[in-house]
């Protein structure tokens, strides 16, 4: 997929088409700025050059009539032509109505570049000899009080306030700096500078509407591109950033994008997709954590770490803040942060230093905090400290659009998710999505956003592994699945959640559904003999919860960065009981994991073995359970 930035250049000299075909001046400009001419007119088609590592695709427009002027003809400025050219690359999200496929919608302009001085008047033999098709010029053309470029800028900025516009001119910048700023231009590029590609690249990085060339963040819709631009701007500094958006909009993905773009080498590679490895392997630290895992008892050691003590034999532990040193610490779902944790974090942000548990020395904090939430934290019901909120968004707030607001991205998202779903299950047939299926997807409200879309696509693909087309009938939405689904997630229930994975929301939904399940239908065949199934799935779910708790409470040290299992803190975390004894914790693991001990793998298997060693006797509750089980 072509993700090269797409720019529109409004310029009389470079935008003109010549009767002879080649516009040498445009060709030279493209070479100077490493832009690929995709105008599609005679001038671009007859180009003799190839840009080997282009910075952008450029479409040229003269903004004057006629486009091709011969001797004797009069050239006049044409604001309407310029506006039409801008409109052709500015798909308004509102144009995409629900239920209609966004077919044939052009990509957004990443940026518009406007010349200042447009020469008008008659094309004379002399002016044509100097530059083919150019008029002799009128006295007001070159008057900075009446530059047509400024009129263009003003008109375009009024109609397209979100569109980034730069002046591209050979005129002295200082002469017009006030005027172009007033009219809405974001900057000025000197057309005759030798470092043109670098200047353009920097302008695009700071202000352009650019897709993510790595493909991690999928989409080219205007709301998404605006959010990505905010993220790149946030990446330029080390202030804390808050990411907000509905559930399932990809807040952690955006946080990772900020982290990636913060790399010194990111500017070039954020535009070009030719070095993906360099983009994904960042040099600075990235630590992601769900704020809900911090309980009042555990958060201090988790955040600040533990000072090793040789005399008492206490092992040291590196805290999350230290782990993220020089990089980013991502707090997901900060609305779930306990008041005690908020207070501690507030102190860290104020003092910019921490002290390990049991330690005396203060350690400086060189960490940027990226936070995410879908909650209205300003609402007093959330009990979120306003002073902490202010500090967490000191570097800005990035609002992620819902899927409803970026339906233009549906085809790209669906394509990616279908391929992912196919890759997830080997041997499955590759398929195409029919227009009717796409219409059905576009007509949905998507309260769960991209995460919900992912579930729907995976459901459609895994239920129909042997077909070549994903048709409308394969698409089932969550509301219709309620009564049909027996499993919440595809795949093994014992899969350990990955670090930072959002578990709070699906679990809350699941519990709510479980409470609402009614099995008193008249059709006995529906529920007869299903008790073992229910018990098995209940055990799997509990095991998965324990796996998450084990992961969250691992003791991490520099020697063992993957962490060491701790069943006691994990049991405390999972139960929410701070007074739980170590023996009871082992009993809990034995009781919950015992029924499925033969299926256990990894951490759960190890945790079960540890609990067996700690508590070799069968707990009373299990005996009672055995007695009651036929």
């Amino acid at each position, binding site marked *: 997929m072509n993700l090269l930035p797409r720019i529109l250049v409004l310029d009389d000299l470079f935008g003109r088409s010549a009767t002879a075909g080649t516009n040498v001046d445009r060709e*030279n*400009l493209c*070479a*100077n700025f490493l832009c690929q001419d995709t105008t599609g007119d005679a001038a671009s088609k007859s180009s003799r050059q190839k840009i*080997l590592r282009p910075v952008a695709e450029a479409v040229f427009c003269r903004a004057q009539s006629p486009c091709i002027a011969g001797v004797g003809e009069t050239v006049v400025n044409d604001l309407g032509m310029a506006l039409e050219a801008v409109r052709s690359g500015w798909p308004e999200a509102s144009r995409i109505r629900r239920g209609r496929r966004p077919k044939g919608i052009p990509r957004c302009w990443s940026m518009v570049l406007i010349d200042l*001085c447009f020469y008008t008047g008659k094309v004379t033999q002399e002016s044509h000899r100097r530059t083919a098709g150019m008029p002799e010029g009128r006295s007001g053309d070159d008057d900075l009080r009446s530059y047509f470029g400024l009129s263009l800028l003003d008109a375009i900025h009024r109609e397209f306030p979100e569109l980034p516009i730069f002046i591209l001119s*050979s005129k002295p910048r200082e002469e017009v700096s006030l005027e172009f700023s007033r009219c809405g231009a974001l900057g000025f590029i000197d057309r*005759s500078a030798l470092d043109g590609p670098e200047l353009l690249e920097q302008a695009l990085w700071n202000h352009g509407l650019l897709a993510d060339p790595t493909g991690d963040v999928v989409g080219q819709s205007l709301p998404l591109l605006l959010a990505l631009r905010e993220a790149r701007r946030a990446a330029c500094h080390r202030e804390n950033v808050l990411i907000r958006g509905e559930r399932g909009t990809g807040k952690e993905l955006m946080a990772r994008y900020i982290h990636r773009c913060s790399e010194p080498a990111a500017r070039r590679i954020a535009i070009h997709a030719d070095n993906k490895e360099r983009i994904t392997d960042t040099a600075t630290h990235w630590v992601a954590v769900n704020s809900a895992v911090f309980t009042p008892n555990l958060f201090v050691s988790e955040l600040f770490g533990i000072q090793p003590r040789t005399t008492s034999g206490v092992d040291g532990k590196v805290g999350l803040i230290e782990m993220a040193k020089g990089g980013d610490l991502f707090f997901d779902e900060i609305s779930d942060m306990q008041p005690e944790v908020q207070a501690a974090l507030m102190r860290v942000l104020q003092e910019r230093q921490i002290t390990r548990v049991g330690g005396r020395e203060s350690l400086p904090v060189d960490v940027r905090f990226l936070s995410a939430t879908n909650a209205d934290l300003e609402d007093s019901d959330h009990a979120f400290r306003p002073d902490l909120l202010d500090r967490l968004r000191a570097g800005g707030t990035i609002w992620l659009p819902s899927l409803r607001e970026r339906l233009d991205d549906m085809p790209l998202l669906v394509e990616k998710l279908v391929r992912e779903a196919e890759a997830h299950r080997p041997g499955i047939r590759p398929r195409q999505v029919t227009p009717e299926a796409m219409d059905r997807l576009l007509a949905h409200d998507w309260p769960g956003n991209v995460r919900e879309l992912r579930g729907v696509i995976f459901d459609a693909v895994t239920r129909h592994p042997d077909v070549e087309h994903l048709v409308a009938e394969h698409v089932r939405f969550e509301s219709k699945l309620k009564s049909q689904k027996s499993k919440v997630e595809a795949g093994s229930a014992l899969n350990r959640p990955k670090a930072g994975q959002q578990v709070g929301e699906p679990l809350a939904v699941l519990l709510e559904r479980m409470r609402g399940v009614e099995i008193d239908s008249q059709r006995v065949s529906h529920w007869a003999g299903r008790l073992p199934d229910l018990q098995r799935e209940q055990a799997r779910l509990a095991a998965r919860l324990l796996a998450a708790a084990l992961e969250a409470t691992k003791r991490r040290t520099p020697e063992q960065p993957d962490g060491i299992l701790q069943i006691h803190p994990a049991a405390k975390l999972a139960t929410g009981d701070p007074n739980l004894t170590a023996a009871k914790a082992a009993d809990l693991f034995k009781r919950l994991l015992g029924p499925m001990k033969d299926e256990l793998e990894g951490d759960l298997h190890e945790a079960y073995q540890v609990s067996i060693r700690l508590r070799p006797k069968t707990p009373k509750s299990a005996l009672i359970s055995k007695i009651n089980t036929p």
Partner: protein
Amino acid sequence: MPHMEETSHSLGILWPQQCSLFNHGWLRNCFSQSLGAAIQISRGNVQRDLPSQDHQTWVSEWLSQEDTARRLIDSFVTEMSPTVLFSVSPLTALHPEDAEFFRDMAHTHWLKRHHIEERIECAKIQLVTAGELVRKLGRVKDIQEAIGSGLLHLIHAACQELADALSQLPRSIQL
């Protein structure tokens, strides 16, 4: 000191317009762009054939425009001095003796206030520098030698300096 009858815009069109055609229409937007493109080609960023004698095109282009630059610089004071304002209303209503006095004073002030003589001198030096470099380009064997010697970069930089120097000259008649 220019007299009223000498301010007849001998270049045919107004000086600022003529200067803009040279400085922006040709020097920055055509000549410098062409040199810049060749530099990008030499860096391997652009694939385009550069005929071995292409450098002679730049030389002949420069020689055809050099005289225009010289005439612009030389005629600047005559064309743009505030003395021209004394040949049009309302200053024509002044008594001839008063007009002469004020004209001389306005001209002297203008020269000092806008550092005209220094700016003109600077533009002349840049024109000579660029001209010498282009003539040197005319003596190299082929385009490869021109690129290898770094001459294109030097000429590009000299043209930028010349263009900047011309831009420093006032573009409107000011008292």
